[in-house]
């Protein structure tokens, strides 16, 4: 069975990102930067209305506009099914043009005459759930799931020593990758090359093949560098097909990149989550009952699932009724740990409420209710570690008794994530007679450092340096690797690279062994040499070894194998905040993060994943909020100043502890660190101000509202 080296040279070290110099010097070519010969620009016409029937689309004037080479309707009014003539959200694609310059394309887009018959719309979940709401979605505005129940909830609640009850919510946020969705489509006869900003080159190829009705073999998708995705770029989009059609009609390569407003409206978001929870605690501090009604919106016709109670604490009796609520807004997509930040926030807030009600330290309450430890469920160990780091011993009970308007508080929360490698992953390794080594694998680097990890494993396996090996990724022509989502990339790619490179090395050993006078099984590579294991003095340089190949290189295919990666990771985060109870402004002083991560490949990029996840968690906690006007249904902040993101001055001190578990092999780390940040911050704010934060984001207005509610009698 394949294994990782017992005493590695590179694995686990802080290795600089191999493409750092290209990125830092501005020379890395992202999709947005690529210019193809003869390339022109596409522009999409989108519905300004949240709900409407498209009556007519007139492309004639646009076609005559300067520079225009293609114009198409996206809503197909010849389709006999009238439902397809409707647009269901502001920003839905209606028509498109391509012209020689971006400015000409924008002008021509305005010349496309679209007549709409506006229809009643739903801008909020509250509007959609009213009994008298207009029926906007044919099968109902609300899709109700079956009640899920374990144990005997009513009896447990009746017997509980303490019961808390409250309503909680998290807002819709958008991915806001800095490189918007987009691509360049270039036809050569019936063959299409798409340079796409995607997290999944193979999925985009397959989606384009289905939509265009052409063979998968006729499509190549390339992603050398991409400017972030966070889950929103895992498949092919309407605009991918539109771009291909425009390019076909124009007979030219077409670049179609969304602008920031389009990106907010139509390219995915994290659904909202709402819950009415009633939870019970017995006299011994065991959480015995959890009863909840939950709902949320993922936009037009998309679900809003999230785990609740968040599956960490052992709660024997649980009941849940869930409703997906549809509104006229762009559909949700997977966003960094789908469902988990929402479920974690609600659950961890309720747990703090139970602890405060029963006058038990919230950390102690958690320890009493955590499941037994396993390699991927280490919270009983991690909570005390985090508590030590944040200085939990100086935590005061609910409400900072200090005089003055600045109140300080502490909070904590736990996270878990699966992140298994995909057994479908394949790769190919080629060793050239001149000593070059290339690994081809159809993954992509979305900013996590995948290209660097491929090279680390190659160099480690062949005993070479990073600059002696080549990683070829980001191309659907390379062997299959899964989309970079769900924290599966490191667990899919690095085992596959290891297995494939070991096979290639074994093939090289066959060729070199006779010259060394040993058996092939006795041959290995290290320190730039190929040599006998039994007698390292019997050997030759890597270059000389490869010369033994003559004229034919070695090409070896490999596939993922069990034993190099594990499923499951656990972690905790603590927050230390201060809140001005006169202005409502929250400042995060420190975050302490304890995160396990299996076998670390590159310590630098592993740390960066954690810092990045925490930073995104801060945005979710304090700032970000996709706002739709409740009357017009229009997004009021489709930009980057009123859709507020954290910036350098919003950053706290971050105390990061990565817990090595090399015996587990690699485990994905992209998602877990973002899950519990908002929950820890919210609990810290409640602890500071002595009023419960039950809704995100924790804006100054929401802090003041919580204080006001507390003064008015509150619920605690």
């Amino acid at each position, binding site marked *: 069975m394949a294994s990782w080296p017992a005493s590695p040279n590179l694995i686990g070290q802080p290795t600089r*990102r191999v493409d750092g110099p290209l990125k830092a010097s501005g020379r890395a070519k992202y999709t947005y930067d690529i210019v193809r010969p003869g390339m022109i620009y596409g522009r999409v016409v989108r519905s300004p209305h949240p709900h409407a029937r498209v009556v007519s689309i007139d492309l004639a004037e646009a076609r005559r506009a300067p520079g225009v080479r293609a114009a198409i309707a996206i809503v197909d009014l010849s389709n006999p099914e009238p439902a397809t003539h409707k647009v269901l959200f502001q920003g839905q694609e209606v028509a498109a043009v391509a012209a020689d310059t971006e400015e000409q394309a924008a002008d021509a887009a305005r010349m496309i005459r679209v007549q709409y018959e506006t229809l009643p719309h739903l801008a909020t979940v509250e509007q959609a759930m009213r009994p008298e709401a207009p029926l906007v979605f044919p099968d109902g505005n609300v899709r109700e799931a079956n009640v899920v129940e374990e144990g005997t909830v009513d009896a447990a609640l009746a017997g509980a020593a303490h019961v808390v009850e409250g309503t909680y919510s998290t807002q819709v946020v958008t991915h806001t*990758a*800095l490189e918007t969705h987009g691509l360049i489509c270039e036809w050569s006869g019936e063959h299409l090359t798409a340079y796409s900003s995607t997290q999944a080159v193979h999925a985009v190829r397959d989606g384009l093949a289905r939509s265009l009705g052409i063979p998968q073999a006729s499509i190549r998708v390339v992603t050398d560098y991409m400017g*972030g995705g*966070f889950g929103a770029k895992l498949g092919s989009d309407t605009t991918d097909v539109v771009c291909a059609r425009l390019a076909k009609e124009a007979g030219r390569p077409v670049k179609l990149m969304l602008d920031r407003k389009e990106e907010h409206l139509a390219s995915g978001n994290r659904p909202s989550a709402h819950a009415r929870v009633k939870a019970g605690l017995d006299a011994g501090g065991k959480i015995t009952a959890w009863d909840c009604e939950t709902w949320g919106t993922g936009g037009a016709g998309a679900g809003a699932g999230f785990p609740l109670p968040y599956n960490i604490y052992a709660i024997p009796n649980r009941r849940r009724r869930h409703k997906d609520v549809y509104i006229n807004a762009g559909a949700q997509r997977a966003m960094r740990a789908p469902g988990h930040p929402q479920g974690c926030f609600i659950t961890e807030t309720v747990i703090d409420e139970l602890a405060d009600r029963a006058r038990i330290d919230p950390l102690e309450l958690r320890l009493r209710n955590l499941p037994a430890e396993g390699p991927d469920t280490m919270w009983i160990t991690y909570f005390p570690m985090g508590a030590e780091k944040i200085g939990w011993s100086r935590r005061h009970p609910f409400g900072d008794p200090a005089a003055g308007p600045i109140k300080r508080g502490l909070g904590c929360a736990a996270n878990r994530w699966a992140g298994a490698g995909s057994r479908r992953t394949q790769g190919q390794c080629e060793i050239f007679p001149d000593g070059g080594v290339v690994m081809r694998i159809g993954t992509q680097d979305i900013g996590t450092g995948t290209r660097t990890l491929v090279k680390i494993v190659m160099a480690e396996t062949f005993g070479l340096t990073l600059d002696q090996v080549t990683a070829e990724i980001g191309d659907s022509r390379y062997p299959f690797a899964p989309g970079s989502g769900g924290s599966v990339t490191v667990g899919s790619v690095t085992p596959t690279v290891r297995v494939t490179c070991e096979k290639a090395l074994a093939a090289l050993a066959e060729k070199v062994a006779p010259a060394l006078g040993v058996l092939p099984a006795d041959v290995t590579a290290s320190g730039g040499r190929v040599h006998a294991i039994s007698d390292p003095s019997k050997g030759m340089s890597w270059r000389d070894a490869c010369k033994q190949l003559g004229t034919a290189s070695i090409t070896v295919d490999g596939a993922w194998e069990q034993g190099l990666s594990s499923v499951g990771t656990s972690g905790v985060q603590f927050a230390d905040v201060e809140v001005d109870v006169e202005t409502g402004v929250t400042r995060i002083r420190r975050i302490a993060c304890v995160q396990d991560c299996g076998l670390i490949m590159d310590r630098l990029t592993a740390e*960066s994943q954690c*810092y*990045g996840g925490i930073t995104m968690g801060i945005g979710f906690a304090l700032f970000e909020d996709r706002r739709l006007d409740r009357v017009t249904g229009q997004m009021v902040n489709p930009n980057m100043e009123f859709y507020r993101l954290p910036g350098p001055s919003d*950053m706290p001190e971050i105390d990061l502890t990565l817990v090595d578990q090399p015996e587990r092999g690699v485990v994905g780390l992209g998602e877990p660190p973002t899950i519990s940040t908002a929950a820890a911050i919210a609990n810290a704010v409640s602890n500071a101000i002595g009023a419960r934060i039950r809704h995100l984001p924790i804006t100054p207005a929401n802090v003041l509202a919580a204080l006001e509610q507390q003064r008015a009698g509150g619920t605690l």
Partner: protein
Amino acid sequence: MAPKDDSSVSRRDFLRSTGVGGLAVGLVGQADVRAEQGVREVGPGAVPIRLTINGRRHELSVEPRVTLLDAVRHRLEITGVKRVCDRGSCGACTMIVDGRTVYACSILAIEADGREIRTVESLGTEAALHPVEEAFCAHDALMCGFCTPGFVMATTALLEREPNPSPDAVRRALDGNICRCGTYKKVVEAALATKGVRRG
């Protein structure tokens, strides 16, 4: 400008289409009054301009509405700095013009006529990095990298002005830049660790 069918004309499109005179063109409407006020009228067609970028002079012809960023990226194919928000709130397009950082998405190319413009390409090469770029790589102050050229430019401008800034000064200088991957902690570390930037 095309008559509008719906509300798709943004604030910036409006400003772009009214050109360098901004609102005055629409509101005053009389050529002699504009001349008295010293308003130079150009466009709406393409006008010739000279951009001095990274020490090289480029002659090009752009419509008045074209931003400096779009002129540099689309007409000259200098693509290091990016367009992300396109309205001066994220810093991904940061250039240094006459020694000061600007959001290149928020000034027009015709306004940059004759001025000294620097983009990230003026700093280092992949083989010979600028000290700021080197520090960003050493500290892993970049992930997807899309915001990085903007951060590198903002950091460079700061260090050319103030070679030994405090952590607070670094954060303030970089507050106009947004990174979605969350590299701020390491960006600040990199900026503080950078040595050898010459005073600009």
